[in-house]
């Protein structure tokens, strides 16, 4: 059935005698594989060589602090609403006097948990956050787990350490490594 004038016949099932004789095509194929035998290999041996995945890669979550080291999160809950996997949960608390150096806004997340096994790393939480508090790091993966109890990350693992600040467009980042898994670092 011809519906348009743009169709183009592409399949030719007639074989020539040379094609019927098997050997020419096989020889050609052997030539190609032999060429590849001597070519440079495409493999990037992972644990030894770590690649850089670009500035927008969606990896490990991080709760940002601002320049003064205060947590940016104000526990508005937009990230949790935006999360299609419903992996984020939080408990908000009012900032009391004397905590101004800890939290930027009047409200803060007393508990902030992400279920890393539920999370699908879609980046919608990062997009939803009005305070630019949550980011998916482009320079780190979430490690693998061997225990079901480790998979819920609390603030201790999410809030960025003051000596390990995350910068989105960091020219120094050359690789995107995985954190060594917990059990492996023990043994």
């Amino acid at each position, binding site marked *: *059935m011809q519906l348009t004038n743009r169709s*183009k016949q592409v399949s030719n099932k007639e074989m020539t005698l040379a094609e019927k004789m098997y050997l020419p095509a096989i020889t050609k194929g052997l030539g190609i594989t032999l060429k590849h035998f001597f070519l440079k290999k495409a493999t990037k041996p992972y644990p030894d060589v770590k690649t850089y995945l670009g500035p927008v890669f969606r990896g490990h979550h991080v709760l940002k602090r601002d320049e003064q080291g205060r947590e940016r999160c104000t526990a508005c809950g937009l990230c949790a609403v935006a999360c299609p996997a419903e992996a984020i949960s939080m408990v908000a608390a009012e900032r009391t006097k004397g905590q101004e150096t800890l939290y930027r806004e009047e409200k803060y997340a007393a508990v902030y948990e992400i279920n890393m096994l539920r999370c699908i790393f*879609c980046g919608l939480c990062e997009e939803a956050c009005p305070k630019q508090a949550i980011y998916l790091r482009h320079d780190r993966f979430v490690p693998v787990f061997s225990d079901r109890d480790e998979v819920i990350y609390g603030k201790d693992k999410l809030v960025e350490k003051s000596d390990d600040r995350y910068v989105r467009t960091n020219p120094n980042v050359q690789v995107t490594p995985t954190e060594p898994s917990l059990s492996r670092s023990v043994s």
Partner: protein
Amino acid sequence: MTTEELDLANKAGVPARTDEGPVQYVNELTTLNLGPTHPATHGIFQNILQMDGEKIVSGEQTIGYIHRAFEKIAERRPFYQITTLTDRMNYCSSPINNMGWHMTVEKLLGIEVPKRAQYIRVIMMELARIADHLVCNGILGVDTGALTGFVYLFEEREKIYEIYEEMCGARLTTNMGRIGGMERDLSAEAIRKIRKFLAEFPKVLREFESLLNRNRIFMDRIVGVGGISAERALSYGFTGPNLRAAGVDYDVRVMNPYSSYEDFEFDIPVGQSGDTFDRYMVRNEEIWQSLRIIEQAMNNLPEGSYFADAPQYYLPPKQEVYKNMEALIYHFKIVMGEIDAPVGEVYHAVEGGNGELGFYLVSDGGRAPYRLHFRRPCFIYYQAYPEMCKGATLSDAIVIMSSMNVIAGELDA
């Protein structure tokens, strides 16, 4: 087995004794269970084949092994979160699904997307189509025993993934694009990578072609295997490369152009008799056509904005949210899903990796679709499988299955 087939099976065969006395001729059939975890079922579905020696007498499929209730989930999610579902439908070419969904919602909301965004979408969709066809044709090679070509192609696929990564930060389930445009413009790095891909990929593809296409062993395996006539194919609801292999040049991109496909010049490859070789060749040629489209889109990429001017639907930039009250309100409304969607119903189709991928959206004005139905091409054409492999051998059945490119995520939804 139908009575007709049983009669056929009984016609010739080995004598078997029965208790009644007279010798009855019964051909002993073997039941072979392909799947749900057979190595050649890419994705999971079960085929129960009645085999007569190596020949297939009849078959029956059981599907639903990864039924994930997409449509039910979609009724609970705001529009923008449904992108994460479409990602996982035909996961070999998720950008097409993503953007098909975005276009459906834009149609409903009446958003006009700027030309630049449309072109970027075309580039991404065609890259996705290439990635999809690469997997399908590569796997066909694997199923006929030639693994090496598949590995060569997968390396090229990695390069497409790199472009995705540059655009959206993920490889497979991209969550790419937003309602109203793209989430970010083509970066300089992305453009460089696309150019590089366009320059280097044809060489590899040609190498793959010369490894397989005219190799008699490969041709013998697939020529004349699993053919289906154009009438049967249409009756079975075939679309996409599988229908085109049967000789019908139906392509949504040409018939109902969307996202500026009318601007591009490309051919619709068609086959002769809808057999596996035709499907293979059509996919192969579609890769070339996609390359053509990408090249045209890259060369004529218009200047302008990469998102529509629709502040009530498209998230404002983060700096604005922090400073601007109006932007903050929009931001909250969009994230909470409280956008003012009109009541109505819309059907929008795009040319997915496997054919016409349709979105039938019924909106009652709420934050989530009232009903969202996906027309999944795989699901509809896979029912023809028993008819296509009847009379073929076991090896053929596997080749037919992989050439149909049945993707479980799309099949079961």
